[in-house]
């Protein structure tokens, strides 16, 4: 209650013009302080003496005062709002719908903003498949706070102002216009209607303007094939959810193939429903995420994949195109049979970077009448045209290009012949790079028109026919940046603001009567469109002949691929992604040559573990077309096709990066002719490479109860006990389910919510989204390559990956070696072409937690809600809990990871610390940490509901992992709410608990994996 009382010093004050009042107001003290009497008499002052005792007093006082002042703690500024923005309440997050489209990753997202800072990317569940947020999208929020971003525009590598840059650029542009010289705008795929319109306007203003699309991960072949068949440069859409049989020839469609985002659709068919699930057959050379999920996987070299594809075409359509034999021909015939049987519910996809191969695959789909292959709602997320890029290079070299604007692309890094591009760039009169950091291309252009991050930008997208998205800024631009479109608008003397421009464009041609505000609120806008497609009859015979001619078989074939973590390397400076273990190799901070076990043996190449367990490997020299890549580490990869090797793109970035992030080698240097398949020669060299793997044992060692799996056949035809046995214990000489055996009295957990997390191993594709989501939500520290190497990764959530071994328990029993060293020794080795299983493991929040009983200070204890708490303040760091955790999910703070220059990642500078979630404490050195089941989120839901006086609804409870999971494999909720989805899932027949036989009674449950092994 503010007081309105006013105290008066005298009645005089009532008279506002009274001189007395004025006089009093001027004086600090009512009466004069007699300083003169004391200091005025110089003589007495100089005569006064300081005694020894006085002197000591003064010294004592000043020393004490000085040391007290020195003891002051660090000043942390906390500045309150003077005028509080209406929509910001400190402590309450705001969510904004936006869209990420950086040329590689495309997603409709929600951005969680706290106190004006975007801190987390969430999926936009209204946006369907495009609303998923894969690992790189999740991590993109950290790239906003990248300390290596440029602070403003550059001219000749030096800081400049926008007006100076504009003047110089505009002057050159006008000169070029006068001479009608060519201006080329080279962009990565923007999939943005307004951006295209700006470019078109710019072309109108300057005349001779060409827009060249260039994708580092090019899908030019598929685009051209679609163009040839349907008269439109777009990509077909695949409705994997409708597929009964999926045959993929080298297509990593759970990865970056054709713009990605197929995980959700694919997973819908992977959980057996009503005795049905899809059958997925994969022919590929590198063991990809997609291949790891396949029911049947056949390793084939890139060249053999071509033959297999033609053979498949022959087998499906009954034609007899010329081809060659492959090792997998029997499987191809089998696959064709299944495809034909499934008819319109079958689909064939291919990742072969050849127009004719793509035509062939499309032709099979057409022949099958596939409803999965959907040409009527094409995708626009890839637009790169390799021919145009090649032509551009030629023109640049010939000096025919007057100006080159490069946006959303980094050709000096991603082109195989980057050197000649850089030389050609010098012949261009005006070169401008539109980029956030001084990357390889920016180093070679005259100007850098620094762009903002997408979270600071306006924009729009059109990922797919009829599916539009809006990008809106969620923070005021951190630096002196300007959007690419904004620059173009400025240079064509338009005063339009890009935000307004988009708005006008949408109102004019997209919204179709709907309101801008609702579209902005949703972040997406959909309307049905009829795409006009021309149907061209194709000469498949000619395609096959051309394809065969273009395919060269070699002793060693290299297949370049993009990793889940780094993709094409745009976000290579993102420590979360660098430390994200590859789902297959589980290796971080590196790229490496993957090689089959047989080839490694033949070339005498080894991988071995050193005394601290870390993996070391031999190195090779790789040669493609006279280009030599030296000291390439080799990782022996089960499942790699013999005669083929794989190498990940996106590494070996060398500019605009922090030193720690400059990892690996640039594989783009080998991608000649934009092709990811190359003939290669390999030679072993001296030297050892040190890998940083988070998993060192790759097989399950006969412990089949860890990841239970069954075949579809058994799942349908056999009783539950046959494929999901409940562990039993003897209680009073009677075998009872382990669940019922209990050392303790049952704790009443029916009051309030009791949280459970359910993970479906059948639909988990291992995409690693949850890992990054957890990283971002819970302020998990990044520890760097060395610490990962010595098994000190801090991930609260990991995805274990297991390979099958030739030796199984059943086989050992048959051979009479069960339980012997011989059995275990052979079990440690993965098969040449193993089946793969993924298992996300985080704290299991055991109701009988082994960690809780052993902590001497009760720093970890159980909550009534089922969560296993960790009281960091109480923890003294004995690490006993971690030793006693059978799941090994506890993570110790070996060092101080925040504010420590030894760990210069995202917690060591003010900029990147802005990404930290203020609801989660940053842990100090010496304490244990682990998954909290996102207690900050569950408590928020409970408190919000309480405040609003209502029960919490089921969909409110979420963890970072469950909400980010693109396939819905993770479901979180309250099992005390009997109607909740998770409560239903506890009763599912596929449910099992990890290591249930120990009796830990976890609150995390798994649903066993089902493989569709039906061969006919």
């Amino acid at each position, binding site marked *: 209650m503010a007081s309105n009382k006013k105290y008066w010093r005298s009645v005089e004050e009532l008279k506002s013009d009274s001189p007395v009042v004025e006089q009093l107001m001027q004086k600090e003290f009512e009466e004069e302080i007699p300083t003169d009497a004391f200091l005025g008499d110089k003589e007495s002052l100089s005569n006064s003496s300081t005694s020894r005792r006085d002197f000591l007093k003064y010294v004592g006082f000043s020393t004490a005062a000085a040391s007290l002042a020195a003891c002051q703690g660090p000043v942390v500024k906390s500045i309150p709002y003077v005028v509080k923005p209406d929509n910001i309440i400190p402590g309450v997050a705001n969510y904004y719908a936006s869209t990420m489209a950086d040329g590689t990753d495309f997603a409709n997202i929600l951005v969680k903003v706290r106190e004006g800072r975007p801190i987390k990317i969430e999926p936009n569940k209204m946006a369907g498949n495009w609303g998923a947020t894969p690992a790189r999208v999740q991590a993109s929020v950290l790239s906003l706070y990248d300390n290596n971003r440029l602070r403003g525009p550059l001219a000749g590598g030096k800081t400049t102002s926008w007006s100076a840059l504009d003047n110089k650029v505009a002057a050159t542009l006008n000169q070029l216009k006068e001479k009608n010289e060519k201006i080329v705008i080279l962009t990565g795929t923007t999939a943005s209607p307004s951006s295209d319109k700006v470019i078109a306007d710019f072309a109108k203003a300057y005349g001779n303007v060409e827009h060249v699309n260039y994708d580092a991960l090019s899908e030019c072949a598929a685009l051209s094939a679609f163009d040839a068949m349907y008269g439109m440069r777009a990509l077909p859409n695949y409705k994997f959810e409708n597929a009964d049989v999926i045959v993929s020839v080298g297509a990593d469609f759970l990865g970056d193939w054709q713009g990605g985002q197929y995980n959700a659709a694919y997973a819908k068919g992977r959980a057996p429903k009503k005795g049905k699930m899809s059958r997925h057959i994969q022919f590929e050379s590198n063991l990809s995420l997609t291949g790891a999920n396949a029911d049947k996987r056949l390793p084939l070299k890139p060249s053999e994949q071509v033959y297999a594809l033609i053979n498949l075409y022959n087998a499906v359509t009954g034609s007899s195109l010329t081809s060659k034999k492959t090792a997998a021909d029997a499987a191809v015939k089998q696959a064709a049979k299944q495809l034909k049987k499934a008819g319109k519910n079958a689909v064939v996809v291919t990742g072969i970077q050849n127009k004719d191969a793509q035509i062939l695959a499309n032709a099979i789909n057409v022949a099958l009448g596939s409803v999965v292959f959907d040409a009527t709602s094409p995708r626009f997320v890839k637009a790169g045209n390799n021919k145009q890029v090649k032509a551009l290079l030629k023109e640049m070299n010939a000096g025919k290009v007057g100006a080159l604007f490069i946006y959303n692309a980094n050709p000096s890094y991603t082109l195989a012949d980057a050197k000649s591009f850089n030389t050609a760039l010098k012949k261009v009169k005006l070169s401008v790079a539109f980029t956030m950091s001084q990357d390889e291309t920016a180093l070679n252009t005259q100007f850098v028109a620094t762009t903002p991050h997408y979270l600071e930008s306006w924009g729009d997208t059109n990922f797919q026919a009829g599916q539009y998205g809006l990008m809106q800024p969620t923070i005021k631009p951190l630096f002196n940046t300007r959007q690419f479109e904004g620059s173009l608008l400025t240079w064509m003397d338009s005063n339009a603001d890009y935000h307004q421009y988009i708005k006008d464009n949408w109102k004019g041609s997209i919204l179709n009567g709907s309101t801008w505000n609702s579209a902005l609120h949703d972040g997406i806008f959909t309307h049905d469109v009829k795409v006009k497609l021309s149907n061209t009859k194709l000469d498949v015979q000619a395609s096959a002949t051309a394809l065969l001619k273009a395919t060269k078989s070699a002793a060693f074939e290299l297949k370049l691929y993009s990793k889940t973590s780094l993709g094409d390397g745009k976000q290579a400076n993102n420590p979360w992604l660098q430390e994200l273990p590859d789902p297959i190799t589980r290796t971080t901070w590196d790229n490496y040559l993957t090689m089959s076990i047989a080839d490694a043996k033949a070339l005498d190449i080894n991988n071995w573990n050193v005394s601290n367990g870390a993996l070391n490997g031999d190195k090779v020299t790789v040669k493609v077309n006279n280009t030599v890549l030296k000291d390439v580490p080799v990782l022996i990869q089960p499942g790699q096709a013999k005669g083929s090797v794989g190498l990940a793109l996106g590494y070996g970035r060398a500019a605009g990066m922090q030193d720690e992030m400059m990892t690996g080698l640039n594989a783009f240097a080998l991608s000649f002719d934009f092709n990811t398949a190359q003939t290669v020669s390999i030679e072993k060299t001296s030297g050892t490479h040190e890998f940083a793997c988070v998993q060192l044992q790759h097989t399950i060692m006969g412990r089949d109860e*860890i990841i239970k799996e069954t075949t579809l056949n058994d799942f349908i035809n056999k009783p539950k006990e046959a494929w999901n046995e409940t562990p039993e214990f003897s209680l009073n000489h009677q075998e009872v389910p382990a669940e019922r055996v209990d050392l303790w009295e049952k704790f009443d957990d029916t009051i309030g919510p009791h949280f459970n997390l359910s993970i479906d191993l059948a639909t988990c594709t291992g995409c690693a989204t949850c890992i990054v989501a957890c990283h971002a939500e819970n302020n998990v520290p990044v520890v760097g390559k060395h610490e990962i190497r010595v*098994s000190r990764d801090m991930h609260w959530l990991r995805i274990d990956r297991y390979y099958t071994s030739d030796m199984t328990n059943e086989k050992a029993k048959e051979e009479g070696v069960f339980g*012997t060293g011989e059995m275990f020794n052979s079990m440690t080795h993965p098969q040449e072409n193993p089946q793969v299983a993924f298992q996300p493991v985080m704290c299991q929040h055991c109701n009988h937690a082994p960690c809780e009983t052993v902590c001497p200070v009760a720093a970890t204890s159980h909550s009534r809600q089922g969560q296993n708490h960790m009281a960091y303040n109480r*923890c*003294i760091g*004995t690490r*006993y809990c971690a*030793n006693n955790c059978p799941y090994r999910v506890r993570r*110790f703070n070996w060092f101080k990871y925040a504010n420590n220059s030894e760990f210069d990642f995202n917690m060591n500078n003010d900029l990147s610390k802005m990404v930290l979630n203020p609801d989660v404490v940053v842990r100090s050195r010496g304490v244990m940490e682990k998954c909290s089941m996102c207690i900050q989120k569950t408590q928020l839901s409970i408190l919000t509901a309480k405040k609003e006086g209502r029960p919490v609804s089921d969909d409110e409870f979420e963890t970072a992992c469950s909400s980010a999971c693109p396939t819905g494999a993770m479901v979180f909720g309250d099992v005390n709410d009997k109607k909740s989805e998770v409560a239903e899932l506890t009763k599912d027949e596929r449910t099992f608990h990890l290591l249930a036989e120990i009796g830990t009674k976890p609150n995390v449950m798994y649903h066993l994996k089902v493989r569709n092994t039906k061969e006919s």
Partner: protein
Amino acid sequence: MSHYEAPIREPLITGNKSFHDITNDVAAPVEGKANKLWWIAFLIALTAFLYGLGAIMYTIGTGIGVWGLNNKINWAWDITNFVWWVGIGHAGTLISAVLLLFRQKWRMGINRSAEAMTIFAVFQAGLFPIIHMGRVWNAFYVLPLPNALGNLWVNFNSPLLWDVFAISTYLSVSIVFWYTGLLPDFAMLRDRAVKPFQKKIYSLLSFGWSGRLKDWQRFEEVSLVLAGLATPLVLSVHTIVSMDFATSIMPGWHSTIFPPYFVAGAIFSGFAMVQTLLIIMRKVSNLEAYITNIHIENMNKVILLTGGIVSVAYITEFFIGWYSGSSYEDYTYLSVGAATGPYWWAFWALITCNFIIPQSLWFKKLRTSYMWSFFISIVINIGMWFERFDIIVIDLSRGHLPSTWAMFSPTYVDIAVFIGTIGFFFVLFLLYSRTFPVIAQAELKSILKSSGENYKKLREENHES
């Protein structure tokens, strides 16, 4: 106290020793000047200690990450060293308490030093649980202190907490027991001291011992009572240490035979350490007459017995590992896990040192050889260190989920800390040997007439029986 002893028993005190000789011999190292050898040994030990101290300070200042541990193997050298030192600290109480109750007179020549060793070893042991904490500065959280935070209390379920009580109880009882025995001997030194400073110090230390009959009576009573109190501790300390492992659920740790197995192992290693120290000491401090062949042989017999128990425990573990039918247990014990896995060398070091080599003690010739006994005692010390290393590191390195299998390699800091504790131990022991009566001479005198060589001979000549 004099008692009858059969003439065929070998004398426990050799040579022509009178009561005064014993006094002189025990007081000699205290009253004389330290020789060169002592100084060299002391300086080496002090250097090692300071090196280790530096490593400890570096650890506390930087983080446990300077050790070789990781998120899968959260304990390694720290707890190995802890258990090793606790084990070593077992012989003292056993010798002074249990053997007292069993009226084994041969303990009198060695109990003082054995107990000193115990106390110094427990110091080292106690150091590790403290410095292995991530936040040492909050170590007092393990004490059940009343606090202003309501019901914030220690967790009585945790074996680590039991450790806190077990070790501190053991240490305090050991110190009291040891000190009580020292009283008459300190009084002896006090009475002999010529320099006033030394006289002052020893009179303070001897608590005003007067040598009256009442003093002796109380001394005997207290000794007996303390022996009674200390005996269960011999069993309890290592039982509780073993529960750190046995109550957990890790395959290889979760084992019901751990308590007796650990106690036997502790006595095994404790006696080995006593051997190591006394065989040197009898030479350096001229105590050959008091620490004789018979002492060494008796201790070797105890070593053989406890070594046998430990070996049976190994075999039992292996059998149960196989018999359990659990592939986790099976893997850890048999097959690849230990013997042929990446830590095969540690496993075979254990088997060789603790099982194979000690079997030589069945031969009397070797059993009574000082050189061989010394060699064996060193071997057993090494073997017992590996036993703890194997239990902790091998088992942790092969947990339930194969995806979490990892390995451990020590850093130089791990090694420095261990060396530091060895240095600290010897610093204490060397200081003790120069300032304390290293043999319980008062007690020893009580058996001179019954077990002294000259008296035995005298009796034989007189045909007394």
